[in-house]
């Protein structure tokens, strides 16, 4: 069970959070102008590294902020956590 250092609440168990997948998977600013390929890249084709990963977590049972967390997907080492919107 991960221990996620919420920048607002402090260290909290993973069970208080909901996972949100890859961070930095940016939504095309103008979806109407995006090609099918660019749009489905955003929808379906995400980073899946074995190692450092920037990802989103929602502190559902705490401050209800979305966090951007840097975590190693192999060791689970958590390198940083910050509020997605400061």
């Amino acid at each position: 069970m991960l221990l996620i250092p919420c920048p607002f609440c402090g260290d909290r168990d993973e069970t208080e959070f909901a996972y949100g997948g890859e961070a930095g998977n940016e939504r095309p600013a103008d979806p109407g102008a995006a090609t099918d390929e660019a749009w489905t890249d955003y929808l379906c084709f995400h980073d899946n590294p074995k190692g450092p990963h920037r990802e989103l977590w929602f502190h559902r049972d705490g401050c209800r902020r979305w966090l951007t967390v840097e975590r190693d997907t192999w060791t689970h080492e958590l390198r940083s956590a910050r509020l997605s919107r400061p």
Partner: protein
Amino acid sequence: MRRQPFRTAEGGHLIDRTGPLRFDFDGHRHEGYRGDSLASGLLAAGVRIAARSFKYHRPRGVWGFGAEEPNVMVTAGIGEEARPNLKATEIPLSEGLEASGQNAWPSVAWDLGGALGLAGGILPAGFYYKTFMWPARWWLALYEPLLRRLAGFGPAPPAPDGAFHAKRRVNADVLVAGGGPAGVAAALAAARAGARVVLADENVRFGGDLLRAPGEIGDGDGLAWIDAATAELEGMSRVRLLRRATVTGYYDHNLLLVAERAAGDAPPGTPETRLWFVRAREVVIAAGAHERPLLFAGNDRPGVMSASAAGGYAHAYGVLAGRRAVIAGNNDSIYSVARLLRSAGVSIAAVADTRPDSEAPDLPCRAGRAVERAFGSRRVRGALLRRTDGRAGDRGERIACDLVAVAGGWSPAVHLHAQARGSLSYDEERGLILPDRPGGANRSAGAAAGRFDLDGCLAEGWAAGVAAAASSGHERAAGEPPRSPDRSAGDAPVFWQLGGGKRFVDLQYDVTAADVELAAREGYRSVEHVKRYTALGMGTDQGKTSGMAGLVLLSEALGRPVARTGTTTFRPPYTPVPMAAMAAGLIGEGQDALRRTAADDWHEARGAVFTAAGHWRRPRYYPREGTGEDEAIEAEVRETRAGVGIVDVGTLGKVDIQGRDAAAFLDLVYANRMSSLKTGRGRYGLMLREDGRVFDDGVVMRLGESHFYLTTTTAQHHAVMQHMEYLLQTVWPELEVYATDVSEHWFAAALAGPGSRALLGEAAPGLDLSDEAFPMMAVHAAAVADLPALVFRMSYSGELSYEIAVPADYGLALWTRLLTAGREHGLVPYGTDAMGVMRLEKGHVTHAEADGRTTPDDLGLGRMVRADARSIGVRSLALPALRRKGRQQLVGLSVIDAQARIPPGCQVAESGDMRPAPPLGHVTSFCYSPTLGRALALALVENGRARTGQTVHVASPVTGFSTAAEVVSPVFYDAEGVRLRG
């Protein structure tokens, strides 16, 4: 005969001789003392055969002292209280304990299954992969049932666990796993440095190895030092001492699971287990080491056991594991064990040391010799010693004995280190697998790190405690570490086996050296292959004694160094954990809270039949005297459509949206426009997922320029909240919008039916309900039944309808006051089934239709979607597969036979014969419509809208049902919406 023939006259620091306890094993009454384990009790009573082996049903006796015990698993308790597979070494003896042997019939002492041992020759490792294939049918009919009959150790429990199990989550600076000398030293050092410390040990008393054999610390008795240190720790407020508590698992970010067992004489009400979830900044692993076996023919006979265990039973319990012993091993411990046993009254027949040069003048020493064979069948009767250097002409020495105590060296308990994903190294010279680089904030100390001398263990433990405390921010001076005169390295040269014959490596699963060699010969060369092919190390002892021997045998068979062979993965738990303990607090509503609306007490008192809606329960219908379920539901529908009904819609999600960008935000979240709403008016809103599929729907009301109130479905409410926060915090952080979940604050009830206006008019005299003042999709604040309320005019049923929301504390009052006021109006409460019928008659979709695969167009809602691709999900609607012709579309199905009722889960097919063929689609919702007098369904059908007017078949092959239906519009009732106006 004495009741405890193998009990010494005095000694045994764990037992209390003041009053004997009686216990039963396999139907025989025995006697022991408070403080005994079942294993020591059985040994004291002279019970030598206490178990049968898995495959060959060979007689087995106690081998070990603690968690490593591979042999003696028993079922403790009888009848519904029985717990299978408990290790006798871990069961505290208590008055009246009833235990029985396993995997044997009629008893472990006399087991007919022993005949299987004779067939051992044709049952080598993996035999079942090579046979039982012909004839094909026999596998299922005969072979497999037979194999299954042989499987398992203890009986399947007949009843659930009724005991209370507790859990506790704690934070610590330092967790010390293991309370031997190293662990106690570590805990003391860390605690003195100021750290919050948890010290856990699996035994009833701290002391570790000192429980089994005396040792000196400082200039006194080792255990006395441990007791003094324990007392000091006990007095410190930031220290928690856990006895009978095994650290079973090491998880991410230094979360460790500790399973604490109740004491044998615990008062009633004590939790049977308490699972500690310890989140520690630092961990000191001082888990000790397990004694290894030596391999020789007959090494599984009752009476062959771990030397340290034999010594331990004498020292801790005053129990003799035999009267005349051969002690054999490859390290100095054999001498101290021999002296310990001798002083307890055991006659020492021989001490065989594999090393050629050792000597001990006070003992019958046999240097350079090892056991080649143990004699005896039901128990050991003698041992054959032979030179280890293989010198010619050695005819061996046969020595009569009833105990062969074997000391094959030590395997550090690296389990926790490995679970934390620390790396391991193999010390070729010492034959030890050692913890190498740690995989978390932990350090290993003492025997767990390969230090076997008492002085070294103390020093290493102390240093680990100081360092762990410092790493967690505590650096007060801890004083001087304790010392011991025992500085013998305790190292054993690598030595494994002598001779041939049936040498058991894994006692629990009956894996022999020949099995390992066979696996290697057949190409199962990876240590994991061998484990899986032979079952080596897969037992409930998880190979604590067998692992190293198996590894060495395999390496020898393959002619490669042990380091290249590697180990199997150490998986948690370190020792088995009761399922009931893991489940504690999480059964029923403990896991899945039952959410109740404010009117729930009323529903229950009224005898409502409930259904689950997510975590909520909602009334399905209200039973009526003298009629059945269907009639009651149909009556609710009829009476609502004819008069007025009330339904609890308190479970809907409700969200308050404020902020200067609220309108712009809602335009982006919904597929249809919200910014054009006028204050005081509302609109049905459709939310899409980003992949274009329908996500949720509800009503959006504009309460002010930048203030909205919206509803979500019951099921998706949390998902919608999370989705909106996601968009606000990560996608459009520039928008200033505050979304507040007010679902719990508001209770809501809907009045529906032509009589609703009159009833509401009475309950809310201040409210003008005329169409002009209060049109469809309008909202007003008003007092309803003297309660502060928000009233919405909207309809789900197709009737004139109002939804009334009040703060939930007033919810029950609103409900009961409306029902009272409604008496004269014929007000009828209705449940979700009637609601479902009415919505189906109107063709409104729910999650049965919006099943995560359907687009707005599939559901006939395409015209609601505005063209702005910036809104969530709209861009995906342009992908080819979502625009493809021939997609399944929502249609209505009107069953032609007016008597027919549709069963659940129907498919829609071209023909009614139910023969295999691709179906056209499937029924999503169905009901019998009392309004229309026939069965109706909504269905997703390939090219459905184009089939309007065609006849299709609604069928359920698993129930043999099929009926014809006409494809019609999904709006069956009042398509013009006349009734909405009342």
